[in-house]
């Protein structure tokens, strides 16, 4: 699903965010990416979504070579990805239903498909009764579930979540990761960036640790718990 070999990233201002990073994610995996602030976690995700270009190395996502990808092909790559943001990024002037439907409109879904699929997704994140509410009327956890429904609505192969639990309290964080695991069990690959250790410890998943731009550990959940 994701294959990185000797990838480095330097920002235009000279900051070296990643050095010689190599790692693979297989289809159907669930991976936590952890590391302290400024370690390069978000940069890693940005490379995968083509927001940033790597300096060098090999990078492919879903079989697509991201080093050679053309600008106009990027949107089609992104349609196979689902993004979840720490700050939710819901549109305040749209209600829950519209926020999710929005993502479908963009890829040219018909109204019938939207009417069928959006309620299904909202049911999945348990927000069917809130579909007429506006983001400001929802709790943080609920807003993040809307974000999740939006990321999932186009049936992506890969979910990328950058600290999706960063702005909500711990109990709700578990709820969100539970949901992501459930989605993962249905076959969607999940990469989730976090620095909440409790969360990582509680769920027995693969953990990739980044420190100052380098991968310093890559363990499956069981080993990590023993350590």
């Amino acid at each position: 699903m994701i294959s990185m070999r000797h990838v480095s990233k330097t920002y235009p201002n000279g900051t070296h965010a990643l050095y010689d990073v190599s790692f693979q994610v297989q289809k159907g995996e669930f991976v936590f990416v952890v590391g302290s602030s400024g370690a390069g976690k978000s940069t890693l995700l940005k490379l995968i979504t083509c927001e940033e270009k790597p300096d060098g190395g090999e990078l492919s996502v879903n079989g697509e070579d991201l080093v050679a990808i053309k600008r106009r092909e990027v949107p089609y790559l992104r349609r196979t990805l689902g993004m979840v943001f720490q700050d939710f990024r819901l549109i305040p002037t749209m209600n829950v239903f519209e926020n999710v439907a929005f993502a479908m409109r963009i890829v040219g879904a018909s109204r019938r498909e939207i009417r069928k699929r959006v309620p299904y997704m909202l049911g999945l994140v348990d927000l069917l009764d809130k579909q007429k509410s506006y983001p400001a009327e929802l709790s943080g956890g609920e807003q993040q579930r809307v974000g999740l429904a939006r990321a999932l609505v186009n049936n992506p192969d890969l979910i990328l979540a950058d600290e999706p639990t960063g702005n909500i309290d711990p109990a709700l964080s578990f709820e969100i990761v539970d949901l992501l695991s459930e989605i993962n069990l249905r076959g969607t690959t999940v990469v989730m960036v976090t620095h909440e250790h409790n969360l990582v410890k509680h769920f027995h998943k693969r953990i990739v640790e980044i420190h100052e731009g380098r991968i310093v550990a890559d363990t499956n959940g069981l080993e990590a718990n023993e350590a």
Partner: protein
Amino acid sequence: MRSLGYLIKEGLRNVWVNRTMTIASIAVLMSCLLLTGAAGLFSLNVNRAMGTLEGNNSIRVYVRQDVSSLDALRIGDEIRKLDNVESCEFVSKDEGMDEMRELLGEENASLLDGLEGDDNWLPDSFRISMKDLSQYDETAREIQAIDGVDSIYDYSDLANQLTRIDNIVTRVGLVIVIALSVVSLFIIANTIRVAMLSRRLEISIMKSVGATNGFIRVPFIVEGIVLGLVAGLVSSLLLDFIYYRVIDALGIDMLFRVINIHHYLLPMVLAFMLVGALFGALGGAISIGRFLKREGGAVVGW
């Protein structure tokens, strides 16, 4: 595209959300279109007036009323004898009446009813041209000296003056129109940029879910086109209204047959709307081109 309806709706929503700026850009685009239209109509009318006047280089010699047509022909022979006269063409009073009729146009021709035939008060005349216009004064004096000649009118002077005015109006008009076009494009682009900034969160999300740049553009171009269509419609109707007000006020429809834009109202409205829409679309395209190069969080400014 299945979502075209949605995109157009979004464009219209931009117009509404953004209404103060929208009105400002419509106003500027309208003044641009109005001025272009006014300069164009002026020029067309000047050309029309010159067409009905004599040709460029022509001088008219009028014979006294009491001179008979036969005597008038003799006067013509005398004029032809002058060195500096190149051609001399007899224009009978009946032909003069026909010309007058032509000049006034169908609408006003009835003024001349009852003045034809024996009641024709127009004099016979000659349309002459000179070999060397620099000797105009001298030749004119010689003609004036011929018995039976009443007066000489040099229409070439008027024609020259009209051409000069037309040239000035065209040139000044062109400069103003170009300046206003740039200003309208700038203001439209800015209006749409405001719409875009107010929707940057949506744009960043659109990008992250895989919207193509073309798709993101559509509502903003629609916004520009709507601005242009409205400006084109209002300004063409306004131009029509003002045109006839000005003609009435100046009374110039008595001098020659002005261009009747009522006949061309529909094509004019359509042309104005088309130009407006092109401007709007261009303004929209300019304002989002650079913006779309940004990626992800940079769109929102995170």
